[in-house]
């Protein structure tokens, strides 16, 4: 919803807000391209930025591919609707209708919320939206809950729980260092690879 509000404030039309939500479907990247489009950046500049930020989907898409149906069109649609929240909600046993239910509901909610935000952005007076209010915080809370729940399911019942948990804590510390070095956009791939290697040393 916040994206819709901000996009309308940057003179995007309702059609453009709905189109980017449908065809792009990416929270952080949609926010990232707002200032780029405003500054007149070209397609390849924006592609470089968006592909870098969303590069984390490469391993996520690969690991969740086995759950997808084999029909090409259905597979492509479900793959496009893959998001952080859907990946965190799904289980390995989910398939077919279950995947459609999870991914389509999140996708539709995202598109509709963007449209509602755009409509609100047209009617809400500018001074009602304080620049310092963190309207995106509830989304961070939800993603933190889903991540922690997934990690509990995967790490807590491990045969070598102490060692695996210690490796997870070490990996988290190194991820923080990599964010400092590479920034929050470019740390993903090196950090995920490093974490995988560290976990692989202790995970039976």
């Amino acid at each position, binding site marked *: 919803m916040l994206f819709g509000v901000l996009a309308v404030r940057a003179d995007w039309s309702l059609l453009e807000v709905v189109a980017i939500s449908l065809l792009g479907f990416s929270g952080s990247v949609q926010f990232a391209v707002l200032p780029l489009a405003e500054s007149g*950046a070209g397609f390849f500049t924006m592609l470089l930025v968006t592909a870098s930020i969303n590069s*984390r989907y490469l391993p996520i898409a690969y690991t969740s591919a086995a759950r*997808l149906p084999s029909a090409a069109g259905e597979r492509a649609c479900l793959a496009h609707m893959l998001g952080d929240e859907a990946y965190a909600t799904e289980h390995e046993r989910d398939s077919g209708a279950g995947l459609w239910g999870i991914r389509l509901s999140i996708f539709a909610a995202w598109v509709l919320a963007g449209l509602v935000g755009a409509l609100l952005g047209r009617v809400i007076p500018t001074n009602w939206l304080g620049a310092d209010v963190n309207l995106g915080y*509830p989304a961070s809370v939800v993603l933190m*809950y889903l*991540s922690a729940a997934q*990690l509990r399911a995967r790490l807590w019942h491990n045969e070598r729980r102490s060692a695996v948990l210690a490796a997870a804590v070490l990996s988290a510390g190194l*991820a923080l260092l990599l964010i400092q070095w590479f920034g929050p956009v470019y740390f993903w791939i090196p950090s995920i690879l490093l974490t995988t290697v560290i976990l692989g040393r202790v995970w039976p």
Partner: protein
Amino acid sequence: MSEPVWAAIAALFTTSGLVRILPTFISPRIAPRTRRYLERLLPAAVFINFAVYIAYSEVVREPIPALLSLAVVGAVACLNRLGLIGTAVLGTTLYFVLIDGIGRGGW
């Protein structure tokens, strides 16, 4: 219609094709050891990095409220004590109450 806006939409759609759709159509022959990494270790690695990224992004903005609120959310999720909605309400309320408390000079 603004040309840069439609370039942005095209860039995002191309990105979705490259990072979300394409990997699901490629199935390289993988050794068992590599498969173990991809199916068991990689997802856990992704979620560890998600958690760190979320915490970093929010702590940079509001250090104490975000740290305390997200720690409570993480603990509740690990203890499996409250559902998603309840935890979201709890974490968000705690965050804004702490910000309000700090703003009033109570910290």
